[in-house]
């Protein structure tokens, strides 16, 4: 659990360029952010890259953090990084004339060949569309309220709530049926 005062002190240190404070942020949020990326991409190497990119961005952008929920700010960056990654993949795949559906599958398809352990949840998550999957992971790993998530996604809270509910219900059915 991240205490508010502790977090405020750490962020203040980050703004002053204290490397120990940045290390503390990595320790605080590294696992959650890695989980978010891993559940979205299903791939260790990609998750490693995205997590590194997230914290590099954090160093660059910490000056623009003006208070409010730090989780919300951090996961907004994480979400943008994931969308950039998707767009990059899409561009490369378009060049190779592969459809978006195949791309989505390929992004989320767990890699058996590189010896990664694939759990049951990951194999069911790929059956959800990217948007729903991202929404569920954002909710679960960021631990943000629906109000915050709706703000990040620039949509009404009712829409966010309904989409999450549909997604979670479907995931539950998939898990129970598998």
């Amino acid at each position: 659990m991240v205490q508010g005062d502790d977090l405020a002190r750490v962020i203040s240190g980050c703004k002053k360029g204290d490397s120990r404070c940045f290390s503390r942020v990595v320790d605080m949020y590294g696992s959650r952010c890695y989980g978010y990326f891993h559940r979205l991409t299903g791939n260790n190497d990609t998750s490693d890259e995205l997590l590194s990119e997230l914290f590099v961005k954090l160093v660059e952008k910490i000056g623009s953090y003006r208070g409010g929920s730090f989780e919300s700010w951090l996961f907004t960056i994480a979400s943008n990084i994931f969308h950039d990654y998707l767009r990059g993949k899409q561009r490369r795949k378009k060049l190779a004339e592969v459809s978006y559906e195949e791309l989505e599958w390929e992004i989320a398809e767990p890699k058996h060949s590189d010896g990664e352990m694939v759990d049951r949840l990951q194999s069911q998550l790929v059956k959800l569309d990217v948007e729903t999957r991202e929404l569920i992971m954002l909710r679960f790993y960021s631990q943000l309220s629906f109000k915050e998530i709706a703000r990040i996604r620039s949509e009404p809270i009712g829409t966010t709530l309904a989409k999450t509910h549909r997604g979670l219900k479907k995931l539950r059915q998939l898990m129970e049926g598998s």
Partner: protein
Amino acid sequence: MNDQKRENLKELVEKFFGAGQAESCLQDFQEAERILREHPAPRPDDMLISNIKAEIAMRLPARRARIFRHRVWEAAGVAAAVAIVAFLGVRLSQQPDRQHSFHASLLPTAIWESNNIVADDVDLAVFTAEIEQIRSEVAALESGEDTADPDSAIAELEMELVELNSDFWKG
């Protein structure tokens, strides 16, 4: 992690799904989140975390240099703005006070520079009375109350004005 806990999910669900559906909806949320908790995602390697921390430490000096450059530019901008404001202020203060000199020119120099306040007040009172008299005569002429010859009345008024003007400027 506090945001989600501060949220009253039951209240929110009831608001958007209605009291009838709220219970099953909440159950869907809780069950699905239980499944997610029971299947934790892999954790990042210690090596990855160490590499990230090392990369951050490597990038910090560049960030500090960028912040320093940014602050220097900011300070230069503020200094330039202050210099421009100061320059304009000096230029404006050196210009003659046109408004003041305009008002001064309305009064005859003799009255303006005179120290005899009582005599000046008498003169001003006489001028004021004469102006009032002329004003009332003009009003009478305009309303047609004055039955005398209009040409001679206008000539008389002009004479009075000329006389008043010369008296005024003589002080």
